[in-house]
Structures are given as C-alpha cells and as structure tokens.
C-alpha cells in the first residue's frame, strides 16, 4: 500500500534516503504497518510526538491504510 508521510520541524530531514520528494513523500508499505513501525523505520528520535492521520490525531499503535496521509511533528506550540 502507498502512504504519504510528512515530517515537520526538527524531524524534517529524517526521511529515508532514496525516497523522492520534499516534506511529504510517498512510501510503499506492507499491509498492516503501524505508525510505530514507521517511527522505527525512520529511526525518529525517542521523544514525544504529535501525530495526525488524515488530519486527525492518531495513536502510534494505529495501523495505516492505503492512501492515507501520516504527519508527524515533534512537540511544538506558539500562538
């Protein structure tokens, strides 16, 4: 399945080499891949994260589906 993955702020440069694109890149993943699997695959730093799937907050245990958009932020705020 294909999933768009977007990484932001301090995570911006942590896409896998060889996967083309900018902030948002399309990854071919095995069915049943969870968000936690993606975090491991990308070797994201061990810190709190803000995670959206298709614009809604998601847990790391959630399985991804074909065509979804996964966005991962480090802790950020402003105003």
């Amino acid at each position, binding site marked *: 399945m294909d999933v768009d993955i*977007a990484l*932001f*702020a*301090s995570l*911006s440069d942590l896409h896998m080499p060889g996967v083309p694109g*900018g*902030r948002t890149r399309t990854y071919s993943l095995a069915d049943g891949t969870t968000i936690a699997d993606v975090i491991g695959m990308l070797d994201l730093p061990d*810190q*709190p994260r*803000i995670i*959206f799937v298709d*614009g*809604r*907050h998601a847990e790391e245990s959630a399985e991804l589906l074909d065509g979804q958009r996964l*966005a991962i*932020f*480090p*802790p*950020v*705020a*402003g*105003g």
Partner: protein
Amino acid sequence: MKYLLRVDMSNLTVTKEDVPEAWVRYGGRALTSAVVFKEVPPTADPLGPDNVLVFAPGTLGGTTTPNGGRLSVGAKSPLTGGIKESNSGGQAAHALGRIGIAGVIVTGKPADSDALYMLTIEADGSTKIDRVDQWKGAGNYAVADAIKGMRPADDRYATITNGPAGEAGMKAAGIAISDMKGYPNRFAGRGGLGAVMGSKGLKAIVISDKGLSYTEHADKEAFNAAMRRFSSALKEHPVSGQGLPTYGTNILTNILSEAGGLPTRNFSTGSFEGAEATSGERQREVTLERGGNVQHGCHTGCVIQCSRYWVDKDGHYKTKGPEYETVWSFGADCGIDDLDDIAELDRTCGDMGIDTIETGAAMAVYMDSGKLAFGDGKGALVALKSIFAGGEPGRVLGDGAEAVGKAFGVSRIPVVKHQALPAYDPRSVMGIGVTYATSTMGADHTAGYAVATNILKVGGDVDPLKPEGQVELSRNLQIATAMLDSLGFCIFVAFPVLDIPDAFTAIHDMAEAHTGQPWDVDGLMQLGKEVLVFERLFNERAGMTADDDRLPEFFKTDELPPHNIVFEVTDAEMDTLYDFVPETAKGMGIS
C-alpha cells in the same frame, strides 16, 4: 513601595499616588482591569475624556523573573465596547518596574484636539510632558528615530508610541512598544487601544531606566532558588526549550493546516495549500539564508527566545517575525503564500500602528466581497495603504473586519464582540471557539489558549473535534491566563507550567519571595478569578449579555473542510463558564 503615576491630559499634570491597599497583589492585567472597572463609567465613550488608558508591568516586572517582562495596557475598547487588556512584550514593562512604577494611568483629554504630546519618565522618577505636534501623522519607526535623536547617547530607555492609525481614532489601532534594539515592533495590538491613546493626544511615552538595576526582592535567596527552578523548567520543556526558540511562533502554520484548523480565505476552509511556503520551517530557512536573526527575546530576561527579525532580499531589517498570527492573517486567511509580501504588510501595519490580526482578517473579508482576489499580495498592500492614501477599501479597513464586512456586504464576518477571530478555526478547534465566544476581550486566542490541549497535546488531551470538555478547559485556561498576565509572564510559560508541576510551584515561590507576602496556589488562581470578575462585571454594565458570548452563526451552519464539521458546543454549556463570578465578586465586596 511601588506607586501609580497619574497623567491628566486635560490639565497636562502628572502626580504620584500610592497603590490602594486592596490592590497590593495586583500587577499587569489585574491592575489595568481594576483601574478601568473602578474609574471608567461602563457606558463612557471610549474616545472621550472619561476613558482611561493604563500601562502596567506585572507584579514581577522589573525583576529577574524569566519571561516576566510583559506589559499590560488597559482601557475601555473602542472596538469591542467592553473592557480591554492588550498584552505586549518589549522593554517598557521592565523599565517601569525598575523605576518603581506599578502603573501609569492616563486620564482626560487635551482641550486642543490637534495637540500631540510626549510623556517622558526619567530613571529618577521625574516626569515631563512636551508638545510634539511636528510628529503628526508620523509612523512608529520615524517617531522611534526622532526620540533616539533626542536622548543622550548613553541612555537606556524604552518607547511606547502611537502611529497615525491611533491618531485618527481607528478601531484597529494598536500601541507600539520598543524591543531590545529599540525597534517599535512589539504591540499591544488588539482592541483599538491606539485610538484611545490618540484621543488623549499622547503620541509617545519614553521611559528611561538608565543605571537602574533589577528590583529588589523581599527574600533574594528564596527568589533566586525559585527562579532557577522555573528557568530550568522553561529550558527543559520541549516546546519552550526547543520548538519555539528554533522556529518561532510560526511553527504553528503547518500543524494547524495539517489539523484542518488553519482558517483559509476568510474562514472558508481549514487547510492552506500555501502552508509550506509560509511555514515557520521555511521562514527560518529564508531568514538564515539572508543573514537575519532567528532567535532572540522580545524583552530582557526572556529565556524562550522565540522572536526573530525578517530581513529583505538585501539583508536589511524589515520587521519582527512575522509572528504566526500575522503570517496567518495576511497569509492563509487572505490566500497569500509569499513571506516577503506578508512581511511588507506586517511592516506597513507596524508603522501605521494597526493590529495585524484585525487588519489581516479585515483584508480577508474585503477579498471575500470580490473586490480583490484572494492571493493577491501586491494588491493587498495597495489596499492596506488606501487607509491613508485613499481609494478602496480606504479608511474603513482601519476599523476592522466587521466594519469592512458591513461596508462591502459580506455575510461571513468572523468576529465576536466586534473583534476578529485569530488564527484557529473554532469548528475544528472547538476549545478555542469557547474562548473566542466567552472571553471578556472579544475573540482572543491568548485569553484561554485551548489550542494547546486540543491540538498540541500540552496540558492533557481534549479532542478538538468534539464539544465535550471544552468549556471546562477554556474556563481553567482563562483563569490561569489572567493570573499569568497579572504577574507579568509571557503566556508561553504556560506550556511548561501545564506539564511540569514544579514550574507552577516555582511561580508561587517567586511571587512570595519577591513580595514578602504569603501566597498560596489557590491564591494564584483566585487572582485570575478576580481579574475576570472585574472584566465580566464591567462588560455587563456596559450592556453586554449572553448574546454577546456567541460565535457568528455561520460557524454553526457552514461545514468546514476538510473535516466537514461545525461548532457544536451548546450555548447553554458556554453560559456556565462564568458561574464562579457571583461568589467571587461577593468575596471581593463588589457584587
């Protein structure tokens, strides 16, 4: 002992007063709201002689408190018709605090309505009022330069200045406060307080704190111990210690767009295709490429350091930030995806002395009328300059989003209590919708920043797309914010305070060690409640009712893409938010 400085613009006199005994715990917003409540007839003309304009550092202003140098500016608002506290960074609060001034209360109105004056407060507490008619119509940057030329070369001072929008009595006019480099780029922007300053003929205030050290504490050792704990918490929390210093406030553009909560093209959708081009990440890259500064404080003693300077393509200073709210108002809300265009609009607003949130929102409403295309950044600049240059939309743009909507027949006008909504759509961030609707300030994100818990997972987790829990969240945040505003804190300290219990305890300990009076944790929250009592009762007496605590109808009827959702918190539930007011007021003896 700190004192009040009363400036009577009718007689051009300045007198010192003791702080009333009942107000000894009041600084910042608590003091400005107490003064307005006590001294301003609720139905007074905001631009008449009976309004007052109050400038107050927080209780901890003038001390070494980390992020404790914010300034509260209060009056009856010509925009909302209710009480207003507009909060700003910059150097003025610390300067006032170091001199020993708890607040400056400006009253009356000069007999000569064409006269302009400058109030100077020297480091020894002496004052004078000078006529500065030659500055009529001058922008904030020109006035700041003129003041610099008048001061001794080795002086250390802060400025509070009013641009031409304030002189002209525009309802979106703000008041500029100088930053650490002397740029007049920090703003008490919201609610038209520049118009109040203009009505009093006051063009500028200069406050020198040359040679003055930080204010002494009742218990220096205890204060310093608490201060170190608080500072550590600010540095330890990932938001205040890493995210904000690295990317600034505009780090929010991408995340709000991702969450479907970034109001785009006058609140018609919640995601902006130009978010990446206007994001904090992109802003940092461009600023660094051009040699701009990407990390400094808006006032001395700031640990978080989320300010930055935007420079043009030749590397010359243009403006601060731009901050997230401005990037949103002139960016996504107007459909503009060019940071240079947004920075030019920000600079122009800054020089005119006009609120970027209100004016950007007003510009988006104007675009919604079909008179100017969404996304036309160059056209937006021409439209902005039409406020003084003439043409459309002209002066009405300076009176805010509602005025523009009425003038050009737009049905979708995003205001509460006549003040424009900031950069979060209440349909997909329902907690902030409750704050917008119920705040004593009109639509104001800073009054109770539920975005933190709805979107950013700070201070817990309340689903932004559901109505449950939003009223309680907003109530607690509004009370806590009123407390922080009164002590003089930047509201960004709330991020670590919400997550690190000892940070809150450290605030208590600093307040106690500085004032030498016993405080308790409940007492801190009681302070926040008392502030809201002053404000709520003032607004009620000014004629506001439950009908004023409502979002515009379209937020309840028009579904917002991409979540296709409407605002669902009920009126009945929102009407319980201020249930604590009667009992608290009774305890204050003002029911």
